């Protein structure tokens, strides 16, 4: 398959999907000798100035309308959901500290995570389960999803400002006890 044709294949797949498509799945639709990365790069460049833009969200790719054209879609706008402060903060903690356990989230907020908060974020598919931590009890962790990145117009967690600053403040207060 020529590179030109590879571009066309990805274009067709992306144009007909409303959700981000994982890179590895896109790759399956191309012959082995085609480098998916370079095709994506080309497409991204091609769409940069157009009415539809190609975005990377984590390990997935998606096409979205250009942000400056939002006035065209007034009728398509959905009413913003009212997301509780607890859920917003929990989401921010997961985004900044992932992978993170429920206990760690509670430590930062100083309150236990109400039932329903995790459920809501899971239902929105903004968070997912990560690996278990190797700390005692092997608690399960949470991570953010590509869908989260897409929703908030981020291409990776690197786009979050001040990650290092927050990491430096640390996750565990226990460290202090061991000084």
């Amino acid at each position, binding site marked *: 398959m020529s590179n030109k044709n590879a571009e066309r294949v990805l274009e067709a*797949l992306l144009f007909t999907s*409303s959700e981000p498509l994982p890179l590895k799945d896109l790759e*399956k639709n191309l012959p082995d000798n085609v480098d998916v990365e370079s095709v994506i790069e080309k497409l991204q460049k091609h769409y940069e100035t157009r009415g539809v833009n190609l975005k990377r969200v984590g390990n997935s790719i998606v096409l979205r309308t250009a*942000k400056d054209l939002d006035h065209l879609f007034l009728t398509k706008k959905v009413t913003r959901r009212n997301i509780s*402060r607890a*859920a917003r903060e929990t989401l921010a903690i997961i985004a900044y500290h992932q992978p993170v356990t429920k206990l760690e989230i509670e430590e*930062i907020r100083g309150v236990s995570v109400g039932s329903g908060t995790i459920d809501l974020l899971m239902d929105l598919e903004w968070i997912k389960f990560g690996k278990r931590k190797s700390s005692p*009890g092997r608690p399960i962790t949470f991570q953010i999803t590509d869908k989260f990145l897409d929703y908030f117009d981020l291409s990776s967690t690197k786009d979050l400002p001040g990650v290092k600053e927050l990491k430096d403040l640390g996750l565990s207060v226990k460290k202090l006890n061991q000084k």
Partner: protein
Amino acid sequence: MDNSKGHDDLTKSELHVCLDGFEGPLDLLLSLAKSQKVDLKKLQLGILADQFLNYLRDQRYKFKLESAGDCLVMAAWLTLLKSQLIIPEDELEKDDSEKINELITLRLQRLVKIREKATWLFDRPQFLQNFFPSYIYRDKKVIKEHFLIVPLGDILKSYLAIVDKKNYTVPIDANEEYLFLDKAISFIDQKVKGSNVSVSFSNLVKEVHALSGINAKRCAATIFCGILEYTKIGEIQIKQSNIFASLELTRIRNVYKV
């Protein structure tokens, strides 16, 4: 986009607030601290402690039991800090109060930061607000199988639903109180890992039993499990001089984490 209306009510009604309008002791403390209008690092902890304790006094009848504990811990810290400010004599205890001071400041800073980030996040351009997906019609042809999107949460919930339906009994008697492993672990963490000397197992059990009122044998069993977890990852060492002698627990230092 979603079918999860009604969630918000759920989250709101089940917030574990122990204080009117505040989400826990840290939230309250932060808003009190903000009233001092200074850099968090230069907080007047004495004033803050007074304010916090007064607030608790006024609100004590509104406590929800599960979070009262958190408030009391915070209150205890602040009281200690305050007492240190009045009589800063004993060197060792002064060290303690500095640690607590640092700890509270750190936790407040962290909460402030994460709030900023949450606001930043929700102020961003959003999907279905500022940019929109494709609705291009696919001629009744559905996308290839490996683009199938099934969230893991749905699978897990299916399982939960079956287990619920079948009334699978989790072998725990709801009328009895149990010490859960995570509680035991955080207790061990405090007592043993925060200490430089060895701690005896039976004292730990007594302490937890006294604090929680949970059956002592159950405390012993759970704490023992907790200790095993810690020995497994090599953070705690158990010593016993001979059979039936008391178990002595020490923190293993110089644990190099990879």
